[in-house]
């Protein structure tokens, strides 16, 4: 699997993503600059990492979504290529129109940085097939603007098409208001596009690949992509 990680000014998790790909997928990822116009020939997977691209100016992800490399990422997605957006990468994908909805400021206005349980809602995709359906995993979250919002019609469509990848829940898998860290509609933590080749999620699977740093629940995602 040939992967490319995009580095925007203000990204800060690109090395975490690259490390996860190297350790789990066994192959170094290319690191591309936002001003590049093309992906390397034969790229299978593009990862948009976490961080604060362009200092979150205007709206989180808004300016990065209009940078030159995103044209190439859109073409890659249109060809059916895989795209994974984590945290700020998720915000960028929504702003670029590659995923539905938008990430708003957390409902309680606080930046949340903690471990969070998630329920795997759709385990049939290229990204999530390493998990049993309904499995509860624990990922790290660290964001101030992770409140997923979309209009009612869009939410119905996302739910109807099974485009919800992960939902915030508690350790027992209960999805309710108490287990929702940021106010997201229907506790949505990650969504696919309609073709299931683009995934965006606020939590950080790339930080849960080594038992030394808190768990390995993120590994199946990268293993599935590499397989």
């Amino acid at each position, binding site marked *: 699997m040939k992967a490319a990680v995009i580095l925007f000014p203000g990204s800060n998790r690109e090395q975490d993503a690259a490390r996860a790909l190297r350790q789990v997928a066994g192959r170094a990822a290319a690191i591309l600059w936002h001003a590049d116009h093309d992906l390397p020939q034969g790229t299978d997977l593009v990862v948009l990492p976490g961080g604060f691209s362009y200092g979150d100016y205007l*709206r989180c992800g*808004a300016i990065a979504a209009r940078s030159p490399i995103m044209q190439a990422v859109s073409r890659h997605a249109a060809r059916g290529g895989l795209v994974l957006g984590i945290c700020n990468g998720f915000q960028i994908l929504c*702003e670029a129109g590659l995923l539905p*909805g*938008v990430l708003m400021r957390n*409902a309680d*206005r606080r930046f949340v940085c903690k471990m969070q349980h998630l329920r795997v809602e759709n385990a049939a995709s290229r990204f999530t097939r390493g998990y049993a359906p309904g499995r509860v995993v624990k990922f790290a979250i660290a964001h101030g603007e992770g409140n997923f*919002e979309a209009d009612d019609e869009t939410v119905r469509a996302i739910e109807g098409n099974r485009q919800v990848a992960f939902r915030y829940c508690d350790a027992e898998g209960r999805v309710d208001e108490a287990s929702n860290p940021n*106010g997201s509609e229907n506790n949505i933590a990650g969504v696919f596009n309609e073709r299931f080749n683009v995934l965006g999620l606020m939590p950080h699977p790339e930080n849960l690949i080594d038992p030394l740093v808190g768990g390995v629940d993120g590994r199946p995602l990268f293993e599935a992509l590499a397989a």
Partner: protein
Amino acid sequence: MKARVTVTLKSGVLDPQGKAIEGALRSLSIDGVRSVRQGKIFDIELDGEDRDVARRTLSKACERLLANTIVENYEIEIA
């Protein structure tokens, strides 16, 4: 030519920043404030003097960058 673009959250969209400001006004004992919604203003200088062209340019700017029309409305004023 000068123009002003105002971007506001659509009604019904939760505005935590507006809520925080509302609370701060209350704590300053500034009475009579029912609610606060925060928005953004862009003051923009444009080439040329054609108002229709200016409006088209600004509409494009709003649709493509200045507003996220999923959750925001925009208004264009040309001076």
